[in-house]
């Protein structure tokens, strides 16, 4: 965009332009921007109450912004419900996981978009293809290296924390056609399980689907992110890369100890063009 930039900036897959959202007098988002470019993992960090979750929920259709615009591949879209967002190919792994504990793995994976049997059983008797969905669930779980769970008809509440996380991630990976958003995916996990989720994030990116990773865990963010979006007081204050900044520098910007002097244009650059 700037005169000295020779490389063209690609169209962001997902973009927030000037999003604002207030809950009564509490301003959660204040003219917030975000760009997610093809093939990247974008880390999003920020202190508690900085508005990260609200920003993410605007993308997943769980929160409707008061003003501002969300663009997918450059086109403005209105994401009024979670279904709108999912229909646009955006899948979210919520911090709460959003799985139904009493229901089985196969049902959870396809909840809200069940497959019906072909032919008259499906069209007239509305019969679901339970076997087919279970089979697809098994395949998805095994693609993610989670096949130690053998029985797709077992209830999610009988799984360990890491396995539940796996179910939520598998659902996102199975249906995320465009973007996958993960909100604190390693918060409840041990070291090994976290490592597996981080590997999953890289795998998903390598399959060509960009990922937004929200986390408080700086080592995790710095390990997998191509760019790191730093959110403070409801807006973006800097975008750094693991190469350009150390963790402590990023935390200093995040907490306000250091003021970032980045311009909006600089913050909107893809990783390759961010000054090293």
């Amino acid at each position, binding site marked *: 965009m700037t005169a000295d930039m020779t490389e063209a900036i690609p169209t962001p897959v997902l973009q927030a332009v000037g999003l604002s959202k207030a809950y009564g007098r509490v301003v959660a988002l204040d003219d917030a921007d975000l760009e997610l470019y093809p093939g990247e993992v974008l880390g999003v960090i920020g202190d508690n109450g900085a508005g990260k979750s609200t920003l993410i929920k605007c993308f*997943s259709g*769980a929160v409707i912004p008061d003003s501002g615009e969300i663009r997918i591949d450059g086109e403005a879209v209105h994401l009024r*419900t*979670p*279904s709108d967002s*999912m229909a646009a190919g955006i899948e*979210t792994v*919520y911090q*709460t*996981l*959003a*799985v*139904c*504990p*009493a*229901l089985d793995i196969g*049902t959870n994976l396809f*909840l*809200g*978009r*069940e497959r*019906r049997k072909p032919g008259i059983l499906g069209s007239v*008797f*509305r*019969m*679901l293809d*339970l076997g087919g969905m279970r089979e697809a669930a098994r395949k998805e779980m095994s693609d993610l290296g*989670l096949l*130690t*769970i*053998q*029985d797709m008809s*077992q*209830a999610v*509440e*009988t*799984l*360990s924390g*890491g*396995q539940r996380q796996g179910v939520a991630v598998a659902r996102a990976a199975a249906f995320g056609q465009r973007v996958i958003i993960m909100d604190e995916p390693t918060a409840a996990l*041990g070291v*090994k*399980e976290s490592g*597996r989720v981080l590997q999953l994030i890289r795998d998903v990116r390598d399959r060509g689907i960009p990922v937004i990773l929200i986390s408080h865990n700086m080592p995790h963010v710095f390990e997998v992110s191509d760019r790191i979006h730093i959110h403070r007081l409801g807006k973006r204050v800097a975008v750094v890369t693991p190469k350009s900044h150390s963790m402590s520098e990023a935390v200093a910007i995040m907490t306000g100890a250091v003021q970032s002097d980045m311009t909006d244009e600089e913050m909107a650059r893809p990783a390759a063009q961010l000054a090293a």
Partner: protein
Amino acid sequence: MSNPEDYRREPASAEASAAAVVGEISEHDRQDPTAVQRIQRVLHRYPALGPLVFLVVMLAAFSVMSDRFLQPFNMSLIIQQVTVVGTLAIGQTIIILTAGIDLSVGAITVFVSVIMAKLSADYGVPGIAALLVGFSFGTACGLLNGLLITRLRLPPFIVTLGTLSVFFALNLYVSASTTIRGSDMDPLLTTTAGKQGSILVPIIDTPIPLASLGMIAMYVIMSYILRYTAWGRHIYATGDDPEASRLTGIKIDRVLVSVYAVAGFIYAIGAWFLMGRIGAASPQSGLGYNLDTITAVVIGGTSLFGGRGVVVGTLLGAIIVGMARNGLSLAGFDPLWQDFTIGVLVIVAVTVDQWIRRVSA
């Protein structure tokens, strides 16, 4: 629980694969389940198993206590006695599965029966038309409950407590508190039971009322719907975790409204069966059905907290209640012990449910 003898590292043991919950990551944290845990898991997976086992035990006990108990005539009597409650309890089940409750079952049922009877007896409306109006009216009553719950964000307990009184008062107004005799109505409205309304079932050589057969058919249909259709799965999901359901794209308000409306329709069918059973439409009957349906649902293993249970369990629950009353009476106990027993059963059932819900990895 933490017996060190049970500690095994090898995941290939038969017990481990039977439990089928052992993940590679946390393998070393796990132990094989104890016998009690295994029972807990089986009950968790098959919520109707508990009531089924109890029913069989009770059947055996009563057949020892009284030789009349197991005779086809007596079995047929029990089925007839549970038909109305059993039918209404299907509606109560799908509502409780959404973590709701319906206290207006009895009021809707009686109100619908009065409307059907009055249309036929006082206004000469053909039986089939009176039935259809009644079915629509029951559905509308349920729909009203559902709309009040979702639009005003009121707890189902409060909404249906209110509509219980409202529907019952309107029912008294419409009927002028007067019973309408079956002989004044179109026969269609009352021939779901009795001599004309029964079919001789060959193997047991005993007449079974059409209403009872209708009830069983409704259980089969509802079992299919809950297990094999998206709407059925969404009922469980909504009751289990409404916020998670919303985030996965389920329109939970739409699910709730439709569940209350369908329950209202089921109550209207129950109202039809009720007129066959008592051979009249009585505006004072039926308030007991509120608690009787909840009792059947709870004894049938469905959780009052929503999301868990099967409708077949409710049928077993209704039969358990009917059989307990019948068996205790045949065995010569004072009727007060019937209520005592059913009260104990309810508490036991809820305790077992709480225990099953604590199952974990």
